[in-house]
């Protein structure tokens, strides 16, 4: 086991391979306050990549309702259960064990092994609230009865558990963008990656008898475009870009800004130790204890900062750029009224007003001879 630096838990940890960060690291930020679980991302992914035989129930991108939804069944709770209770005091590095450190000598990670029936209900728990909402009830923040939607892709982790567990070394992390891929010609379908990934984003195809996973839409990324799940997000809740570790973070990089500078987007289950590269703006209304378990001890601060965004035009500007372009934004700029996004060469790919201009029109449309109304 090598000692590697994991900034998400703010300490060194054990991993089977040496630390080797790619030149660029693929990352997505999701604003969970805006996700409506329309599943357009799931369908965009499915029609692009997983419409074939053996992929009928396979969702490289899925959206689950928390806390009761999960795909496969209770994957996160069962991994946390295997890991056992761990300590993480705020302001301190994570004191508990990662899934690599807690592994018995014969395994790479502590894990649970999902079976056939666990994959059968991709959208179980949808819209299930933690309690009934009686008539006449009112809610305060955070809500005492709550649920929220969690869209998920592969996190193309800096320290992938799938890669560490493959005895054939058929999984690799690309140098150029950090995307983690299963070599479809080398995989023998042992399913070790399916067992090892705590997020259960490696999936077995019973028709081809090999394992498959989210490919980060690498053909699009190679052309400077964002993945299909991001391009097609109608709620504009996501942005894909490249993240730097905090010691190399750039103020004008959209992902670095949200994760490192503004610190309103957090990785999920960072305590597992994989340094996952999908980041979430946590939902402001959900139970804090639950959110701390999912996003770590800094979630309260992130929510407080998010609630104050009305005083912060720069972050507002960045958030309105989300979903504004299919191209990957490498940098952004915000002035008083407008936000701009730029590609790798520094050319503008998108601009958006911070506030959409208000246009007042007379009630009667003389051109068509009809009364206008505000019905959308």
């Amino acid at each position: 086991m090598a000692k590697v630096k994991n900034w998400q838990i703010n300490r060194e940890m054990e991993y089977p391979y040496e630390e080797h960060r790619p030149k660029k690291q693929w990352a997505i930020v999701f604003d969970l306050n805006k996700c409506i679980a329309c599943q357009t991302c799931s369908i965009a992914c499915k029609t692009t990549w997983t419409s074939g035989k053996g992929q009928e129930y396979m969702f490289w991108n899925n959206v689950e309702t928390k806390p009761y939804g999960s795909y496969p069944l209770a994957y996160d709770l069962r991994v946390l259960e295997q890991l056992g209770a761990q300590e993480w005091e705020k302001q301190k590095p994570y004191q508990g064990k990662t899934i690599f450190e807690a592994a018995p000598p014969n395994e790479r990670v502590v894990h649970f092994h999902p079976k056939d029936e666990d994959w059968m209900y991709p959208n179980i728990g949808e819209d299930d609230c933690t309690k009934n909402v009686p008539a006449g009830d009112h809610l305060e923040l955070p809500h005492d009865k709550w649920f929220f939607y969690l869209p998920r892709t592969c996190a193309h982790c800096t320290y992938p558990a799938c890669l560490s567990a493959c005895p054939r070394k058929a999984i690799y992390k690309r140098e150029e963008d950090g995307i983690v891929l299963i070599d479809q010609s080398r995989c023998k379908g042992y399913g070790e990656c399916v067992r090892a990934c705590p997020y259960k984003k490696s999936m077995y195809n019973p028709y081809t008898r090999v394992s498959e996973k989210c490919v980060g839409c690498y053909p699009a990324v190679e052309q400077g475009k964002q993945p299909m799940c991001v391009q097609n997000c109608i709620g504009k809740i996501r942005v894909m870009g490249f993240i730097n570790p905090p010691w190399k973070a750039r103020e004008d990089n959209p992902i670095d800004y949200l994760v490192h500078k503004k610190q309103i987007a957090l990785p999920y289950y960072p305590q597992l130790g994989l340094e996952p590269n999908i980041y979430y703006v946590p939902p402001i209304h959900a139970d804090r204890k639950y959110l701390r378990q999912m996003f770590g001890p800094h979630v309260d601060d992130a929510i407080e900062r998010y609630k104050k965004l009305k005083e912060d035009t720069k972050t507002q500007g960045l958030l309105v750029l989300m979903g504004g372009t299919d191209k990957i934004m490498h940098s952004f700029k915000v002035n008083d009224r407008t936000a701009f996004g730029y590609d790798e060469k520094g050319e503008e790919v998108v601009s958006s007003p911070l506030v959409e201009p208000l246009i007042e029109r007379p009630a009667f449309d003389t051109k068509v001879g009809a009364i206008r109304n505000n019905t959308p």
Partner: protein
Amino acid sequence: MKFLDRKLVIGLSVFYSLNVTAIVAPSVKGDLSKPSLDETIWATAKEETVTLMAQPMAIPRPAETATAQVKVKAVHNDSWIAFRLSWEDKEKSEAGKLGEFSDAVAVQFPVKDNKSPPPVFMGMKDNPVHIFHWRAQYQIDKEKGKREMKDIYPNMNPDMYPMEFKDEGHLTGLTDEKREIFSHGRAAGNPQSYAKAGVDEIFAEGFGTSSVIKNVEAVAHGEWQKSGWTVVISRPLVREEGSHLKVGEDTFVGFAVWQGGKDEVGSRKSVTMQWTPLSIAK
């Protein structure tokens, strides 16, 4: 960690060397190019019990030994050599669905030097081993063809698959080859995604390096009864570019068993901790 493992292995090797058995393959008359469990072929061969233990080197490995021994008989007919392998396994596992694995057995031979073989743990760089790997799952391929999704999940009802229409209309030229693009493993030419001949022939130069050979000459057949499997693996004595065996000479052989029902697959297996001597009698 690695150092400890090695020490453990050396210790166990010494222990197992005290218990080692030699397998003698007598000459028999009969066709060995078809795998047969028929007693008349096997009557003259002495059954040896070979000790196995949980694969101890490569992680992930089994927490405990699932198959403690395999009973082995061997015979030859001057051009083919056959092994009859039996082990206890109360649960028949043939894989197919998600999270299911197949029962399997493998026989391994040195390639370069029959007298001084490479490490028994699947050989080493530039000193490969030749493995004959039978799986219950591959036997189904051979007997019934590779299973379609309808065979694996009879009650599943997908709307349609890409480019599969009831009436292709003007869309002529839709071929299976074009449809394969939607099956990543097949499109990549992965042999795992195509029907197997019942047994795989494999070259390996250490753990994790196995690659299957295209033209399989070996044959195999297994039968499961309540107490476990009996599998016959039969191969030509001389394999092009692979393992060469000679009548009247001694060599070595290694074994591995997987119990799919105990989630064994890949590096999770029971193996021989050292080479078992094999005499091919005149």
